[in-house]
């Protein structure tokens, strides 16, 4: 080995040793995972990177033996140093002082010398070389000093090898540094507890890896008002709020980076790539750094061939002028594609541009890209004068920024997912609150809009009743501003797609683009996209609905896609897909049932009647469906009238339903017209505009937009009709409203049915009560009329009732009937059917039919009508066969039949009663006939006997014959009296037949009748007749007889022994006064009124006698007197004769006075 080879081998060995030592040196990046490491960084303790200088020293030491070498001096550029304290010249012999070195550096940098040049008057020849590798920036400069030019030229190759060795080591060192930082960044993202924490750690790592003093991260986010720049994190104020500002094309460093998708480096100087330290004594002060920065503005151009120089040269050509309106020069920065550019900072203390790069602070701003699109911006800055290197620092930062971009993307993704969860929660809250279905639609619409950060969202639901696909906007959400009633705007969205459209979505979009979209002046919206409503499709496979998302067009506002567009769209689509099956699947039914249950809310009190139920349903529907008005119609197919309205409108009550409503009613099922002015609607031409306009006018609307008719039909009978309306300019009635109406109507129907049953039973109870008080002669008619009234109320308003019954006859007969049916004609028209019906009844076959076919003939009314029949069963009375026949022009239901059964059961007892009464009447009549016949014969014979006797027998026998005849007459009189009394007693109906006749014979007959009876108790009966002559006026002799008889009977029972009873008659003006007076028990005041009522008797106990009685005497007397138009009263005065007893037991003079009006003739 020659000396040169030996020397080269020694140089390599030294280099390899230095490299080995260097690899043993820690990277200098302490992972800031955990607080101590972070504190270590913040404490700014020197990092153990002195070995870098040792490596340089050891390497150049290996070249000490190079022939003619005087000295080697190396200066490392800032990025190669772990800390600025290491920025110094590393020398072999320290041959140059600072001034000499400054001169050499000045010459090398300004002249770009590559050949040896002499210094110090040929004292030495200098080779000045940059330390660099292919594809990297300049790590620093090396100055090799030789004794002669020749030796310098001969050693140039050796020195270049030295430079390569140094570059290799430094590159390895830099590579290791970047690798460690990237590893730590990955660890930070993986191990951080939250994305925010990861971001904090990553910025710390970046600061350490790049020796930066601060970092901040901005992202560009979609907002309803357009893309906005948002500060995500900054190291110096980690807890500061996330400030946002609109993306500007003109101002702001960060905005510039977002817009240009390029990096910026401040300050913009060529020498920024390599700052030569001027002093060995410690780090340069800030003032020095600034001075250096300013001083270097006029510095020499970079060496030819360097990238930085090339960039700078290009930047010089492209240098753009600052805006004219700036009062001062805008800061200049080096950019990647545009060279040196002047960027106008944001005005004021805008956080985005702080700290102020314009003040000369070193700052590097790089875009955070994901798939080439700018997601955010990373800004790094230093408080020192150590400038960032465009070739060394910038690539490192850009490489590491990918990790930050990833963290930002995941953070945004996480936040979007959090928003989606929040939206689901909000939707759940709204659904639980359950004001209206529209609120849920609105929540869905708003949720999609918020997640997609749209300016406006419209929920479109398909109207399944049309050809083609018509989507109505049922809900609208606006994220930009309040433009008044959004529902009114929603009403304008009608997207129509022709049937058979190949691409439904694109056709829908085209339709929506043509739809006028309201907004303030100068504000327009552009359709961004439509999202189908999950997998819900109709029978034709078309989506059941869409959410259309719009962006706001704002003049002079930067519009560009943002990195979170995809996230928002994906989140919105996922959200819609998740909630759609709930919001349009199970929710409407659940909500409808919930609303329907409110109809039976017990806290609202029991409904008073079907009308009340329907009125309550109307109010409920108005509040829960978003309808602007709900009308309730009542009536029947013939005529439906408005019975109630919500909100109340008195002028609408009684309004007849329009022709279209009647048509719906006849169809018997719901019909909805979303837009009454849509000519494509199949119902359009059949709408009764006049009626609709009348309603709209009553409510003060312009016109009607949507209407929905729901007939309440139960078992074929119409209970009513619900009509929901929205005003023009209002919203559409959505499909959920249909579900709610259905549920509420079903509940209302059930309520009405239940109520009708209760009312029906109450009606029957009332009927039974009324019939119970009916006089007997009226019972049959009252029963039939009552049942018909009841049936007309609870079964059908125009039905007829026929009660068919037998009365102990083999021949069928109408026993009871309604006034609307002529029984004779019914008998004759249906003679054969009646015969067979009674045959079946006698055979104990139950005849009950919901629809009697063929129908019974009922005066033509029943011909072709609906009839049902049910038997009236009377337990224990097998001789009574009866049926209840109902006739109506409307079909009967099974419920009607059940109701008829109830009625039949209720009236059966009265029918039985009547039946028995008839039988009893017949028995009595037969008995009367039987007894009166012989009596007539006896009387006639006696009279004949007396007649004969007066002619042919002697005086004594004649007297005897007369006595016998008188006795016969008396018995006959008793029989007649019995007949009259029986009539009045049994009829319970006061029916008198006044005849003009003399009063005295009637009174004398009564007195005569009681004289002997009272005499037996020692009571004389005295007749006081005060009128002169006979009193002849119109009265019922039997009734008056009964009156006086009852009063005398009372006197007989209650008079004390040995006291007088007086019967008196007098005329007082226009009345005839008759009195009966006795001395006996008092009539206490407390019962003075009640003794005239049936069943009331004196409540004292006679210690001596048991006084019997029915309690009928005085009530009957009073009824008879009043039937004559008269009055009856009494007085009860203590009699002076009873000394030994006081109070009620004291003898009282009791006088009953009857006063009858008369038009009398006195003779």
């Amino acid at each position, binding site marked *: 080995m020659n000396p040169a080879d030996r020397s080269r081998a020694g140089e390599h060995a030294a280099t390899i040793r230095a490299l080995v030592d260097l690899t043993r040196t820690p990277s200098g990046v302490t992972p800031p995972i955990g607080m101590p490491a972070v504190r270590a960084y913040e404490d700014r303790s020197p990092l153990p990177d002195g070995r870098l200088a040792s490596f340089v020293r050891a390497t150049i030491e290996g070249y000490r033996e190079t022939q003619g070498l005087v000295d080697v001096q190396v200066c490392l550029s800032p990025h190669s140093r772990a800390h600025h304290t290491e920025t110094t010249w590393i020398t072999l012999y320290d041959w140059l002082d600072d001034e000499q070195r400054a001169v050499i550096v000045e010459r090398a940098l300004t002249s770009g010398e590559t050949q040896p040049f002499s210094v110090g008057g040929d004292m030495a020849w200098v080779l000045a070389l940059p330390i660099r590798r292919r594809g990297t920036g300049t790590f620093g400069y090396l100055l090799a000093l030789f004794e002669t030019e020749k030796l310098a030229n001969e050693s140039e190759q050796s020195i270049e090898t030295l430079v390569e060795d140094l570059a290799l080591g430094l590159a390895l060192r830099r590579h290791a540094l970047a690798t460690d930082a990237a590893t730590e960044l990955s660890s930070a993202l993986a191990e951080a507890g939250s994305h925010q924490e990861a971001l904090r750690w990553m910025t710390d790592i970046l600061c350490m890896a790049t020796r930066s003093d601060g970092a901040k991260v901005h992202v560009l986010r979609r907002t309803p008002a357009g893309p906005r720049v948002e500060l995500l994190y900054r190291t110096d104020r980690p807890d500061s709020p996330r400030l946002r500002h609109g993306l500007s094309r003109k101002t702001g460093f960060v905005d510039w980076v977002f817009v240009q998708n390029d990096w910026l480096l401040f300050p913009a100087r060529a020498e920024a790539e390599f700052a030569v330290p001027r002093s060995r004594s410690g780090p340069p002060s800030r003032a020095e750094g600034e001075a250096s920065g300013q001083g270097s503005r006029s510095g020499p151009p970079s060496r030819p061939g360097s990238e930085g120089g090339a960039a700078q040269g290009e930047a010089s050509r492209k240098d753009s002028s600052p805006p004219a309106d700036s009062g001062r020069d805008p800061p200049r920065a080096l950019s990647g594609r545009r060279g040196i550019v002047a960027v106008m900072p944001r005005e004021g203390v805008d956080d985005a541009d702080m700290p102020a790069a314009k003040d000369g602070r070193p700052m590097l701003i790089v875009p955070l890209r994901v798939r080439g699109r700018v997601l955010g911006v990373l800004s790094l800055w230093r408080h020192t004068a150590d400038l960032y290197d465009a070739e060394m620092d910038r690539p490192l930062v850009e490489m590491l920024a990918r990790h930050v971009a990833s963290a930002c993307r995941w953070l945004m993704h996480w936040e979007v997912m959090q928003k989606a969860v929040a939206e689901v929660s909000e939707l759940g809250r709204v659904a639980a609150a359950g004001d209206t279905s529209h609120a849920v639609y609105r929540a869905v619409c708003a949720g999609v809009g918020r997640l997609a950060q749209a300016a406006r969202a419209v929920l479109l639901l398909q109207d399944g009743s049309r050809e083609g696909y018509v989507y109505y906007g049922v809900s609208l959400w606006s994220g930009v501003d309040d433009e008044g009633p959004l529902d009114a705007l929603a009403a304008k969205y009608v997207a129509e797609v022709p049937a058979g459209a190949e691409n439904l979505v694109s056709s829908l979009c085209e339709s929506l683009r043509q739809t006028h979209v309201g907004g303030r002046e100068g504000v327009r919206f552009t359709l961004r996209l439509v999202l189908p409503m999950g997998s819900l499709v109709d029978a034709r496979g078309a989506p059941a609905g869409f959410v259309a998302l719009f962006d706001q067009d704002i003049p002079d506002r930067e519009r560009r896609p943002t990195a979170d567009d995809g996230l928002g769209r994906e989140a919105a689509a996922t959200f819609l897909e998740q909630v759609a099956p709930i919001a349009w699947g199970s929710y409407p039914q659940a909500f409808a049932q919930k609303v329907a249950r409110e109809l039976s809310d017990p806290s609202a009190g029991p409904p008073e009647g079907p009308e009340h139920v329907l009125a309550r349903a109307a109010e409920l529907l108005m509040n829960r469906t978003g309808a602007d008005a709900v009308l309730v119609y009542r009536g029947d197919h013939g005529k439906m009238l408005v019975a109630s309205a919500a909100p109340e409108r008195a002028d609408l009550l009684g309004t007849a339903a329009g022709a279209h409503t009647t048509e719906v009613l006849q169809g018997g099922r719901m019909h909805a017209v979303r837009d009454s002015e849509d000519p494509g609607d199949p119902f359009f031409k059949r709408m009764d505009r006049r009626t609709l306009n009348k309603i709209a006018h009553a409510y003060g609307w312009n016109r009607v937009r949507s209407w929905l008719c729901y007939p309440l039909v139960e078992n074929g009978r119409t209970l009513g009709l619900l009509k929901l309306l929205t005003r023009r300019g209002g919203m559409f009635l959505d499909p959920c409203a249909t579900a709610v109406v259905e549920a509420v109507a079903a509940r209302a129907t059930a309520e009405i049915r239940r109520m009708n049953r209760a009312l029906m039973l109450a009606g029957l109870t009332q009927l039974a009560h009324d019939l119970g008080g009916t006089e007997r002669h009226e019972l049959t008619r009252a029963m039939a009329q009552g049942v018909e009234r009841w049936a007309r109320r609870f079964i059908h308003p125009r039905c007829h009732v026929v009660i068919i019954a037998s009365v102990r006859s083999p021949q069928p007969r109408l026993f009871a009937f309604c006034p609307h049916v002529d029984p004779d004609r019914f008998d004759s028209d249906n003679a054969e059917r009646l015969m067979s019906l009674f045959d079946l009844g006698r055979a104990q076959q139950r005849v009950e039919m919901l629809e009697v076919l063929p129908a019974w003939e009922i005066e033509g009314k029943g011909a072709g009508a609906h009839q049902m029949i049910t038997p009236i069963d009377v337990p224990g009375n097998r001789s009574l066969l009866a049926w209840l026949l109902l006739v109506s022009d409307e079909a009967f239901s099974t419920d009607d039949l059940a109701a008829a059964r109830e009625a039949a059961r209720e009236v059966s007892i009265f029918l039985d009663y009547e039946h028995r009464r008839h039988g009893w009447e017949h028995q009595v009549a*037969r008995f009367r006939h039987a007894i009166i016949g012989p009596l007539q014969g006896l*009387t006639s014979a006696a009279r004949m006997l007396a007649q004969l006797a007066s002619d042919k027998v002697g005086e004594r026998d004649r007297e005897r014959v007369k006595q016998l005849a008188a006795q016969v007459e008396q018995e006959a009189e008793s029989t*007649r009296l019995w007949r009259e009394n029986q009539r009045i007693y049994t009829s319970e109906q006061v029916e008198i037949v006044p005849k003009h006749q003399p009063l005295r014979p009637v009174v004398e007959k009564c007195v005569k009748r009681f004289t002997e009876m009272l005499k037996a108790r020692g009571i004389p009966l005295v007749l006081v007749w005060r009128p002169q002559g006979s009193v002849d006026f119109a009265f019922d002799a039997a009734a008056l007889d009964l009156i006086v008889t009852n009063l005398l009977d009372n006197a007989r029972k209650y008079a004390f022994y040995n006291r007088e009873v007086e019967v008196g008659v007098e005329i007082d003006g226009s009345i005839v006064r008759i009195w009966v007076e006795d001395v006996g028990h008092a009539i206490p005041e407390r019962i003075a009124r009640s003794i005239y009522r049936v069943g009331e008797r004196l409540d004292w106990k006679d210690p001596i006698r048991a006084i019997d009685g029915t309690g009928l005497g005085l009530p009957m007397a009073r009824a008879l007197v009043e039937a004559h138009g008269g009055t009856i009263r009494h007085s009860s005065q203590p009699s002076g004769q009873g000394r030994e007893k006081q109070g009620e037991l004291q003898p009282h003079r009791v006088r009953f006075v009857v006063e009858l009006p008369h038009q009398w003739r006195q003779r």
Partner: protein
Amino acid sequence: MKPHVLWVDDDDPERFVYERFLLEKDGWKVTWARDVAEAADRLSHEKFDAMILDQMIAGNGVEEQFVIWAGCNLLQWLRGSPPSSQRRRETPWPALQQLAPHDQNKHLPVAILSAYHDAEVLRAIYGASPDQEEKPRFLGKPVQDRELLKFLREVRPHQKSA
């Protein structure tokens, strides 16, 4: 020519021996009919001046409910009243459907012997509104001779008791 009275009663005429004595003494010719068919037959062929009519007239094979209102049915037939009651249509006496009353008998003064109340009988004859001009007179049983003679003398005022 003596005035002619038709007395329709299913009872034995002997039970009215005194009344017949009085009528004949009063100058009346009394013809007795024991059932509805006989009465209808006589009323369709002979002219009478008055009729005493029992309400309950039994007959062979006639059911009880028809017996009760037999007098009423006969009177309805005589007056030619419209079928206001179902009972008229069910009459078991074919004579009432086959015969027509003598024209001069249609307004015959009638006194009804009834154990029923007057209003009941009127309703049975004329239906719900018994406001008829030719209302019958009502006489109870046993017959009061004074009322009987009063009725007949009102019918024939010139006919004075001998």
